[in-house]
Structures are given as structure tokens and as C-alpha cells.
């Protein structure tokens, strides 16, 4: 059924169709509307057979979800930003225990400075917690990915994080096609846990494991992710067959044939990128893009295939690994095995708009081989220069020669760029 609906409400409707049995809610912008929507459905009876628990923190939320999943219930929660970090210990724990919890992450920046707007700092902070990370491009996909997420999680006994861009998806009103309950029921069977707390079968879950077996436990966690590389596209294919539209999967190439420059990105920004690609192609420039649907497990082979033939790759990413660059580009380089240069463009931090003009500018520079390895899109350079200058002026310590130089040339500031580091 087609609805003109807020992204969060669309996701809430889709999640409700998955018949979650325990929902843990703790407010943090921008995911709050999702759990509010679910709470209303539990309260008014549209979502029955579901315990809706208002918890005292995100740490509590994930912990309740852990208990619920270990108790044999389909568990769901949502968080964002600081909340994800606050529950980080439990996020790792849920994966370690192999509990198929589904969590929506309304992607948002991490402070300080506190910032409620979108980027991918939160997801990247916990990319290696043992969770599958799926990224939604659109509100429709955001809804659809949740339906797939429960299937994937329960098939693998592995938690799944559905990453949706804060505000851009969560708060945007768009047309969303929501399936019927019968359709979802056909696609998603009731939860059958691998293990649960059962008085009749009283094993111990969560033992302490020492050096003699810890590596093996970790290896098996890695292997589970490798298995997910098969499960994710299979579930996506089944979804498309059942619901008549594509969603999910590992990678989604767009007009990559013959492209000299390929842009790689996560999430909703792919929509803007595709618009730019269309414009560039119309202008006769060989440009395409690849949207990564699953960042963990990271689809090395699929990405390598999608990027094959490109002269260069530009990673447009909404996170910064200070002192290095971007997490996405680092991963893409591994997939590409040096076959082509990979440029990192840091963009959209803390909610800064990523414009078609901005992307087009990056592509123009790339086409002329004038794009730095690391670029901060739309950086207000005078502001940072001024601050760096002030900081340098205040510095009282350091070698005498440097201080003398500063006194003689007050306008000049020495600074280290990533490029210089690579040299």
C-alpha cells in the first residue's frame, strides 16, 4: 500500500509488520520518531504480542534486547550517535552472544561538539562490533531493509544494524509502498532461536573464554560474516521476488559501464550522486557510481567486480578518521588491491548539505587528476586558517628557532596535511 509518510513512520510500519516481540525505547534524535511510532502501535493494539519497554539508557536498551533475544523473543531497538556509543559495550556483547537483534541506527554525528545532524561517525565507530551493517538509500529501502534485516539476523544468529541517514531519511516525507501483513508473514517466519534460556534445558550462555579458545571464537565470528556475504544477496533476491521491488544486497552499481571515474558512497547521498552521474553522462563524461548496501560484512569481491575498469575511484564519505582520512576509502582500497587510485572526499559532516555542484566539482578535479587523496568538501578554509594561525601565535613552547621564525613571519603557519604525511 502506497503512503505519503515520514521516513520514521514508514520504518515503524515495516518493523511492526515484522512482529517484533520486545521493543526497547530510549529517546535520541533523530531515531525517536521510529520508536514513538512503534509505541503508539503497541499502545493502540495495532502491534500485538509485543512488550514495549521504556528503558533508562541506550545501554539499558541494548541490554534489554540482549535479554529478550536470549529469552527467545524477536527483539528490536533503535538509537543514534551518542546513544550508540553509550551502548557500545552491549553492542559488542550482543554480537558475541550471537543474538539476532535488529537495530535501526539513525545516523548522526558524534560530539563534542554536540551535533544532532547526520553523518556516519556513529556507524563507523562500531563498524567492527560484529554486527551486520546495512545502509538505506531511500525511505522505501529503509522500510524494506528492516524486513530483510530480521530474516538475515535470524538466519545467521547475528545482529543487524540498519543504518538510515538522520533527518534526510528519518524526517523526510516521501511515498513509501508498505507491504501487507500476509506478505511479510510469508517472507519472515516466526523467530526460532538457536538457543534460549529454558528451565528444561538449562545450559549456561555467556561463558568466560581464555586464550585457549578465544581466537577460535573470533574466527567463527568472522566466518559468520563471510557467510553473510551469501545470505544478504539471497535474502535481497527473495525479497525482490516476493515484493516486486529491489532493495538491499551488497553493492548496487549505477551506470558503471565504461566509466573512467566511479563514485562510491553509503546511504542516501547516493541519490544525489546518481543525479550528478546522470548529468555527467548527459554531458558525455564517463562517470558512474556504486552504492554499498552492506558495509559489514564488507563485500570485497563484489566491489572489486563493480569497480573493475575504472581509472579512478572517489569515495564520498560522511565520516572522518582523524589523522588518516575516511573509513570507507580505507576499505575500498582493500577491495581494489591497488588497481586504481582511490580518493577520499570527506563530506556532509554534522549535517552539512552535499550538493550536486559540490560533487560535480570533485568529479571535474578528478577528471583532471587534480583531486587530492584527501579532500574536505566545501571546507571553509579561511576559518580554519585563521584558527590555526591563532593557535600558532599562542604557542609559547617549542624550539627557539621556530619561535624566532614565528616572530619574524607572523603570517606564515606550518601545518601538516595528509598528503604530506603520505610523502
Amino acid at each position, binding site marked *: 500500500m502506497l503512503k505519503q509518510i515520514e521516513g520514521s513512520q514508514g520504518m515503524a510500519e515495516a518493523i511492526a509488520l515484522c512482529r517484533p*516481540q*520486545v521493543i*526497547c525505547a530510549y529517546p535520541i534524535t533523530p531515531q525517536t520518531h521510529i520508536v514513538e511510532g512503534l509505541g503508539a502501535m503497541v499502545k493502540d493494539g495495532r502491534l500485538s*504480542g*509485543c*512488550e514495549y*519497554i*521504556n*528503558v*533508562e*539508557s541506550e*545501554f*539499558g*536498551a*541494548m*541490554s*534489554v*534486547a*540482549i*535479554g*529478550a*533475544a*536470549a*529469552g*527467545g*523473543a524477536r*527483539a528490536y531497538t533503535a538509537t543514534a550517535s551518542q546513544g550508540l556509543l553509550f551502548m557500545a*559495550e*552491549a553492542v559488542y*556483547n550482543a554480537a558475541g*552472544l550471537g543474538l539476532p537483534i535488529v537495530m535501526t541506527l539513525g545516523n548522526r554525528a558524534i560530539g563534542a561538539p554536540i551535533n544532532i545532524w547526520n553523518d556516519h561517525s556513529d556507524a563507523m565507530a562500531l563498524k567492527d562490533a560484529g554486527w551486520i551493517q546495512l545502509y538505506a538509500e531511500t525511505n522505501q529501502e529503509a522500510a524494506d531493509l528492516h524486513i530483510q534485516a530480521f530474516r538475515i539476523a535470524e538466519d545467521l544468529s547475528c545482529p543487524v544494524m540498519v543504518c538510515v541517514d538522520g533527518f534526510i531519511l528519518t524526517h523526510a516525507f516521501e511515498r513509501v509502498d508498505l507491504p501487507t501483513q500476509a506478505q511479510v508473514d510469508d517472507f519472515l517466519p516466526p523467530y526460532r532461536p538457536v538457543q*534460549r*534460556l*529454558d*528451565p528444561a*534445558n*538449562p*545450559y*549456561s*550462555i*555467556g*561463558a*568466560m*573464554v*581464555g586464550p*585457549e*579458545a578465544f581466537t577460535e571464537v573470533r574466527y567463527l565470528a568472522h566466518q559468520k560474516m563471510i557467510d553473510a556475504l551469501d545470505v544478504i544477496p539471497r535474502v535481497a533476491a527473495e525479497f525482490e521476488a516476493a515484493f516486486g521491488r529491489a532493495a538491499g544486497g551488497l553493492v548496487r552499481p549505477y551506470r558503471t559501464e565504461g566509466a573512467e571515474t566511479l563514485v562510491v558512497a553509503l546511504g542516501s547521498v547516493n541519490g544525489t550522486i546518481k543525479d550528478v552521474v546522470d548529468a555527467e553522462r548527459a554531458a558525455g563524461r564517463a562517470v558512474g557510481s556504486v552504492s554499498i548496501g552492506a558495509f559489514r560484512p564488507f563485500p570485497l569481491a563484489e566491489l572489486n567486480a563493480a569497480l573493475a575498469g575504472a581509472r579512478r575511484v572517489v569515495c564520498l564519505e560522511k565520516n572522518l578518521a582523524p589523522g588518516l582520512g575516511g573509513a570507507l576509502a580505507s576499505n575500498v582500497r582493500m577491495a581494489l588491491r591497488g588497481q586504481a587510485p582511490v580518493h577520499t572526499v570527506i563530506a556532509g559532516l554534522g549535517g552539512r548539505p552535499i550538493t550536486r555542484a559540490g560533487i560535480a566539482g570533485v568529479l571535474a578535479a578528478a577528471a583532471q587528476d587534480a583531486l587530492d587523496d584527501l579532500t574536505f568538501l566545501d571546507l571553509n578554509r579561511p576559518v580554519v586558517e585563521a584558527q590555526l594561525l591563532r593557535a600558532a601565535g599562542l604557542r609559547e613552547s617549542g624550539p627557539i628557532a621556530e619561535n624566532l621564525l614565528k616572530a619574524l613571519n607572523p603570517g606564515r603557519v606550518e601545518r601538516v596535511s595528509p598528503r604530506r604525511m603520505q610523502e
Partner: protein
Amino acid sequence: MTETQKVRFYQTGTHTVGNRLMEAESRTVQASPERSNAITSGHRACQGCGEALGARYALDAAMRATGGRMVAVNATGCLEVFTTPYPETSWQVAWLHSLFGNAPAVATGVAAALRVTGQHDVRVVAQGGDGGTTDIGFGCLSGLFERNDDVLYICYDNEAYMNTGVQRSSATPAFARTATTPATGPHPGNVAGTGKNLPRIAMAHEIPYVGTASVADLHDLEAKVTRAMAIGGARYIHIHVPCPLGWGAAAHDTIRLARLAVESGLFPLIEAEHGEVTAVKPIRRRVPVEDYLRPQKRFAHLFRPGHEDRATLAAIQATADANIRRYGLCPEGQE
């Protein structure tokens, strides 16, 4: 009722674990060869571990109260570490360990799952040490309380972080030596604050049941667990479990020390329902706090030969006296 049943068994009263002459239902769960042994042999707790004992006492009682329809959640800590090092577990009840600070929330989730999957007869017991309860798990515990989730939370209080090597917790008594409150300087031992009285904090949540118990009084402990399991909603039991290692005491003194803590008034045995004290266990044979403190090396700095710290001992005695007054632990004429 026969004559033999009318006459109380004064040989031991009701204080021993069992008694061949009492009706089976008047004996403790621990007296029964059919007890669950929630923790079985082979665990790696230190010799004379009060927590190993307290946990078996409490969970066996809960198992009897629920007819075996019970699952347990455990915070990180000694109890978790000494029972479940791969490849062996000592637990014989369904058991889940997640993290140090989240046992109450995990238990909430388990209870919700049991409810939503229709297993209404299966009850949840969560447990942790004093660090996991009064410090790192406190937020989750308070959440459990205020939501009145159907969980019995048991704190095994050995008064410091023992698993990590005896560091101070907010349940460490004033003046006690720990690894982070050494017995040196002008104010040796733990700061003389008021600590964190979690039973009273629990009472402030007005949850259906709060009890304090001791491994030295098994009948009382089992009665409290049994009472707690007969009630729905959030329940809290705080069990005093001496730690021979952390307290610097002999392994065979574990129960004796727990008993002296009760008999001195330093660890009052009380029950409260919905925030109001409903019962106290009177002190049977009152002892001065010194009797309790002296056998413990963590208080040795109070008893240096020729330099006994009378002022501090008087302060600790005053704490015990205040407890006795507050709860009326010494009935008329005994004080």
C-alpha cells in the same frame, strides 16, 4: 499433630540447616538431598567463598519456590568468573551472562521475552556482586525498580571489587582497607562516608519487596527468597557474603563473620514491602563491633598493638548502634 511436633526442637531451635526431627517443610532447602544445587561442585571460587554459598542458597530456594521454573541472569564478577570458565560451567540452572553493568536490564528483557512467549510460570532471577549492583549496574537496576519489572534481583555483597583484586566499591564499609583505599597516611582505609545503602535506595523506589539476608542465617535467607518469589514485580534481596580473600579472614570464618556482622548490628536483617519496613530479625546475641572487625585483616590498622584506634572503633560502634535503633534490632530489655 503428635506430641513430638508440638514441642519445638530446642536442641537447635530452627537455626541449623536441617533437623531430623522437624517436619520436612520446616527444614531448609539446603537440608534436602533433592536441592537443585544451582551451582555444583568443581567451581573455582576460593576456599570458604561466601558468594558461592550465598548464590547456591538463594537460587536453590528460588528453584524450590518456582518448582524449577526459573532462569538466572548474572552480572560479570567473581560469581560469573568462578562458575563459567570455558570449557566448564558449574550452573545447573538456565543461566545467562552478558556484561558487568547490565544484569538488571538483561533480566528485564528475559522477563519480557518469557511473558510475550507465553511462559508466564517461568521466573527470572538476576544476580551480581556489590560492584555490579551498587556501582556500575546501578542505573539499570534503578530502571528495573521503577518499571517494576517482574525480576528478583539479588546482590551478593562482599563489600569490594574482589574479582579484580579487592578495590573499593560504594558498598565498602568505612575504614576498610582495600587495594584502592590502602591503610596508610593520616586517614587509613576507606573514606568515612556513608557509602551507598542499596536496600534503602531500593525501598525508596517503593518496589513490592526488599530484603536483606546473610549467609549466616540460612532459614531467614530462604524465607526471604521464598517470600520474594511469591510476589510479582521488582524485588530486591541484598545478601551479605564474606570474602576470605578480600577481607583477610580465615576460610573457615566466612559464616562466623557474617553472623558477627548481623549480631553486632552492622548488617541489619530487614524486610520491606512497598517502601515500608515490615519485619526485622532481632539480634539474638549482641556483640560489640570489635568482635566482628578484629578477625579481619582489612581492619588490622584499627588494632595495631599499643595504638588501637578507639575513636574509629567508637565511630563504627555508633553506626551499629544507629542501625539497632533505626530498626529496633534489640527487643526491649536486651539492648
